[in-house]
């Protein structure tokens, strides 16, 4: 143990063991070592496994050919995948089990030992390595010529900067896009995904509508981006159940309230409504909002209430927005209040 002993053992204890290392246990012979008959049997088993592998490959090819895809017939897809997979599995497992069985029964199973050496290079090697570095340093003047060295550091520090800057157009600057949605004064509330406007009279107490702003479906570009901000949940509750907030008086219409559907935690759609508690639940991380109390957070990791969309009805009785949301919807971000 000479090589290993040269290092500190730290706080390791050093006791005398009751016996010396007895060395490896004597090898025990297998049946295949002792009897030629067993060895021959093992040989046949290995060959059988390799044979099964060939059959598996044939099954897999058959599975491909036998189930052509004819439009609309999903059973071909299913059966094809099944037989190709089973065939592949047989073909692979046959080789795997065969090789392992061969190694375990017929190849020598006596363990052998090999010496190790510590990772550290020998002192002479190290001295040689240091010498080479010093020689290279002397020949190049890396240490001696400060001007070259320092200007090189400078160049190396600056050259990657363009590589970073060039990625500057990965995305447009954020601006205040996160603070505005499609809702404007007078935008009708329409059903998601049909885009049919909603009359106040058809919203019965307890019913829930998934709402998008009028015109969203007709957008040529950025439809999903706008929807990801503007999705709204519309619910009618008994006006007596709603808690009053003087700052938001007149934001609802006869017990009909509209709240952003985008969770203020990390942005999942808050899609579950429990009628008798007036709670909205986000299925992703279970943030729970009390619809009757301005969607305040009553449970879960969200920190802010869901923003309310001020609504009213237009001359024809359709529900419309009074304005955009008055605060950013969705997950909180750094400068959302600026």
């Amino acid at each position, binding site marked *: 143990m000479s090589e290993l002993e040269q*290092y500190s053992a730290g706080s390791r204890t050093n006791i005398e063991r009751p016996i010396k290392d007895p060395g490896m246990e004597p090898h025990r012979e297998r049946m295949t070592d002792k009897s030629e008959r067993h060895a021959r049997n093992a040989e046949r088993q290995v060959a059988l496994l390799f044979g099964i592998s060939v059959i598996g490959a044939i099954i897999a090819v058959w599975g*491909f050919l036998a189930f052509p895809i004819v439009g*609309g017939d999903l059973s071909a897809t299913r059966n094809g995948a099944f037989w190709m997979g089973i065939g592949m*599995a047989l073909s692979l497992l046959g080789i795997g089990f065969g090789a392992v069985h061969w190694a375990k029964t017929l190849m020598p199973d006596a363990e052998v030992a090999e010496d190790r050496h510590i*990772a550290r290079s020998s002192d002479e090697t190290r001295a040689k390595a240091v010498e080479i570095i010093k020689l290279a340093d002397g020949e190049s003047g890396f240490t001696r010529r400060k001007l070259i060295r320092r200007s090189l550091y400078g160049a190396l520090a600056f050259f990657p900067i363009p590589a970073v800057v060039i990625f500057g157009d990965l*995305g447009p600057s954020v601006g205040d896009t996160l603070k505005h949605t499609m809702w404007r004064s007078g935008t009708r509330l329409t059903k998601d995904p049909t885009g049919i406007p909603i009359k106040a009279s058809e919203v019965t107490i307890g019913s829930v509508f998934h709402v998008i702003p009028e015109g969203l479906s007709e957008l040529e570009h950025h439809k999903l981006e706008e929807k990801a901000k503007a999705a709204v949940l519309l619910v009618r509750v008994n006006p007596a159940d709603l808690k009053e907030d003087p700052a938001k008086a007149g934001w609802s219409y006869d017990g009909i309230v509209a709240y952003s559907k985008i969770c203020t935690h990390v942005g999942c759609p808050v899609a579950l409504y429990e009628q008798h508690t007036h709670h909205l639940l986000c299925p992703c991380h279970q943030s729970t909002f009390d619809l009757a109390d301005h969607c305040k957070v009553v449970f879960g990791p969200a920190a802010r209430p869901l923003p309310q969309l001020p609504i009213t009805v237009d001359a024809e009785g359709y529900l419309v927005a009074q304005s955009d949301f008055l605060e950013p919807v969705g997950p909180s971000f750094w400068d959302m209040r600026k």
Partner: protein
Amino acid sequence: MSNATEPKTALGKTANYLDERLTLGSVLKNFGRKVFPDHWSFMLGEVAMYSFVILILSGTFLTFYFQPSMAHTIYEGSYAPLKGAEMTVAYSSSLDISFDIRGGLLMRQVHHWAALLFVAAAGLHMLRVFFTGAFRKPRELNWLVGFFLFLAGMGAGFTGYSLPDDLLSGNGLRIIDGMIKGIPLVGPSISSGFFGGEFPGTEVIARLYSLHIMIIPAVIIALLAVHLMMVVIHKHTHYPGPGRRDDNVVGYPLMPVYVAKAGGFFFLVFGVIAAISATFTINPIWNYGPYDPSPVSAGTQPDWYIGWLDGALRLAPGHMDVSIFGYVIPMGVMLPLIVSLLFLAVVAAYPFIEAWVTGDKREHHLLDRPRNAPTRTAIGAAGVTFYAVLWAGASTDLIAVFFQMSLNHVLTAMQVLLIIGPILAYWVTKRTCLSLQRKDREIALHGRETGRVVRLPHGEYIEIHEPVDKYELWKLVDFKDYEPIMPRPNKDGKITLGTKIRASLSKFYFEDRIAPVSKAEYELAHADHAPETIEEPKRKPKQIKAKK
């Protein structure tokens, strides 16, 4: 120039050709009989590596058909329920792979199952390395490489399952977007850069695609190469036992035994994945529908290896937005981020922490049985528990539904468990290890209980104890053991803060310790018995001895 051995056969000529150009002869001479120790737990890393090969093979098939585009299209494929639906090309090409390309569904499922297995096997391999102390000198750096491999595996998995652009994966991206936006100062800009504008944008699938099929696999291959190179340099560790020492390696030679076993094992892993993929559906994207920011299905869950991060998001207490000068720091997002990063940092740094505490500068090639390093094992158990609670936290809703409990109570219980669980696990594991060590001592000193109770002539009842043979005894007594260090003054006569911390950590680690049996103890225990039972070479000593 004596060419006395000019080859005659075709094989000989080929070998000669290659050797004269590639020095193949000396490569074979050096590595052909390289010894690999055998143990089932050493195959976990192999499973991970083979899964990765399977991922590359099945992934290559998928790249021939998948189109990473977020352009809009109308679905016209075989799956009737979605016919006529508006979706992205990425989603429709994923559906085509599943339904309209022969072998496509199988390859998608092979790819997904192999990915799940890849991360699982890598994680279990890390646990094996941790609990056996295989990360000690000279392998600390390889632990770090492995750690980054695990992270890269998670990254590969996440970027992969986001590609089909279905409702489930889209919501996953939405969550990532929400987390990124919460990062102070740069969050919204990073989000815009990642998505090419506002979420979801039209760029992100293509970007994830280049990450998933090029950059991350390249990183994994590079790290894997370094990982394996270091295994060659260090040679594999082995478990303690007779004849196994820190300066040798005991096992089977590469050629032929290990080639057959490890090579065969690749086919076994691939075969099992193929069998699972043929019979069990994974990620049925056609059930979820195309991504739309408005709907979401209840009981959504990420792939298992992202679960712990999702759980961290769920378990964070609410109402925690911090406001500084009107700027908002959403702690509901930042706290889980910070906690998971800290957890990962501790995992990465552990080998260096333990080396500092023990001060042991020697190379360790002989593994520890987990019981023989009680504090490390207990720390590991605490870490596993912490991870497991976060992971289970990603299923609070499903647990609540399945057991018909209140969702709120399940979540609160998880929050409590996250703190209490690791402490309990630490304590139970440490006590269990110490008890197992005591039992080992007992067996080493007095032999195994045989269950045979005999009555002596003078009326005393004793149970016969059978001493263990020398090979078994060696396994029980051959382990390294550390003592707590005292804080000692340095040359200036001062006890530095570092020394104090180190001393108290050393106390934490090694104050409760069961020392291995020493020669003196052993001889004392055997004073009135015939000591030669131990030296007897037979496997089963005939002589029996009674315990006093």
